């Protein structure tokens, strides 16, 4: 047993120091990658960035005054697929330190006050159940009350299956709240990260006054596997990626993560 333990410890140390880029395969110093907001300095590949990483990248002093972080999901269907939904939520909460798959609050981006929201993909794939829907509603509603533009970062597989029809209802609820933001004449900047699909894509994510997406982010209604099994053919390279959406007129800009803060601030100043 002992040599095996040593070997695995050694591997984990090596893994901690070096990381392989998902794009070009180059071995990079983990620190260097983290300092570059998880963007590969060689090929520009965007690796997933944590909620904390996004705050530090986009928000002045990395500061978010969070709203409603205490909300937790119920279990309307007493859902279990072998493991109970309640347990899955508990595990996700322990692993992420968050109560749900989104954080919202008030922040500044280049000194502009904003209502800011960011999906946490690490929490059950960023899926939208009752709490995520409720917090997005509150984000738009608070933006109206406090007269703030809304900036929302999406990374989500879609509506959360385990809350059944109530997850579906969040699509209508959030979009209706977005309507009130529009009525108030306040901008909504939608930023699609990898991936933005299903019920999140088909509700507010593509209804931004300005839609942005990270390079190569997958953005679409149906997942690639579902489409392949429907049309019974392989999908073309780059299908549903940010560049594909730009080409088909669905988003305004493909924006490198390293330019995101500057570009969001710029468009907010234009729309002010």
């Amino acid at each position: 047993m002992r040599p095996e333990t040593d070997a695995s410890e050694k591997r984990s140390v090596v893994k901690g120091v070096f990381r392989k880029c998902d794009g070009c395969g180059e071995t990079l110093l983990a620190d260097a990658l983290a300092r570059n907001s998880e963007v590969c300095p060689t090929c520009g590949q965007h690796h997933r960035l944590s909620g904390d990483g996004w705050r530090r990248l986009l928000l002045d002093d990395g500061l978010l005054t969070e709203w409603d972080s205490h909300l937790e999901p119920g279990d309307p269907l007493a859902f279990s697929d072998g493991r109970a939904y309640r347990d899955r939520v508990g595990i996700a909460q322990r692993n992420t330190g968050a109560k749900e798959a989104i954080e919202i609050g008030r922040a500044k981006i280049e000194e502009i006050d904003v209502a800011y929201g960011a999906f946490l993909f690490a929490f059950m794939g960023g899926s939208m159940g009752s709490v995520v829907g409720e917090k997005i509603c509150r984000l738009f509603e608070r933006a109206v009350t406090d007269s703030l533009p809304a900036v929302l970062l999406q990374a989500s597989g879609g509506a959360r299956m385990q809350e059944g029809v109530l997850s579906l209802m969040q699509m209508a609820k959030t979009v209706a709240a977005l309507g009130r933001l529009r009525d108030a004449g306040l901008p909504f900047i939608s930023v699609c990260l990898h991936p933005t699909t299903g019920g999140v894509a088909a509700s507010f994510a593509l209804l931004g006054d300005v839609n942005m997406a990270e390079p190569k982010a997958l953005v679409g209604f149906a997942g690639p596997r579902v489409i392949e099994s429907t049309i019974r053919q392989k999908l073309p390279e780059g299908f549903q990626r940010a560049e594909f959406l730009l080409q088909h007129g669905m988003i305004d800009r493909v924006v490198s993560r390293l330019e995101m803060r500057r570009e969001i601030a710029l468009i907010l100043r234009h729309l002010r």
Partner: protein
Amino acid sequence: MADLPFEQPIAELSARVRDLRALAEGDPKYAAELRRLEDKVARLSRELYQDLTPWQRVQLSRHPRRPFFSDYLPLMFDDFLELHGDRTFGDDAAIIAGFARYPKGPRGRSVLVIGQEKGRGTKEAVKRNWGMANPEGYRKARRLMELAGRFKKPVITFIDTKGAYPGLGAEERGQSEAIGQCLLAMSRLPVPVIACIVGEGGSGGALALGVANRVLALEHTWYSVISPEACASILWKDGSLGERAAAVLKPTAQMALELGAVDQVVDEPPGGAHHDVEGAARRLDSALREALASLEGLSEEELIEDRYRRFRRLGAIHA
């Protein structure tokens, strides 16, 4: 002939009743036996249809003889005039829309009626893409709903779809955006909006016609975030486990009612809508009239606010 396995015992008994009735004609010695059998059929179907599993309801919602939107349309509306096209790309036959008079008869007034249509028979089903709309369908729906809003005509929708079409062209032409815009437009309509789920209420593609002041669902329908088959393929990587997935997903109209996503479940004739299409239309018609009447007198702002509140409260949250 029964189309679904669980309908078999009733179908067999009904066949025996028919035979016996033919025999019994003018022969009183069969009359008692006939009455006994008829009672049994009635009792059996009552029991069976009261206690359907979620999967059985899903199967009934897809019954090969289940009435479609186009079957209800002439039974419930007068003077229907179909309008076509999204003004951008094409006309999607998976969604039928137009103005009509509702209710039937001298008191009818103009309404916009929109529904998903699966199409009966292979040729018709291909034309209508089995009721799975492309972005053009949702853009047509949105265009006409906004038109109805401008001319102050109530909007009545019929929902019956497995979901929005997950195809290559649908993605190229912005299926997500088309559905999102439909949701947004519906949430802001200054007129009464009633949605009727008459078959399958599959996910965002169904909800795109479902942002209504009142949502009615026929008894044997389903409405959920995902179909049982797709749910099974995510949970257990096996789309054939729909029955098992339905048991945990509980996608029935009855559950949607319990959770507030549906406002009223409308009883179907014994054995389901396919046994008596006119009876089903009559029941839906009376629920629809009541729903419209309940919104009478609300101002445009109140109608929008009523719809906002209806959806705003939906969710299961521990604060």
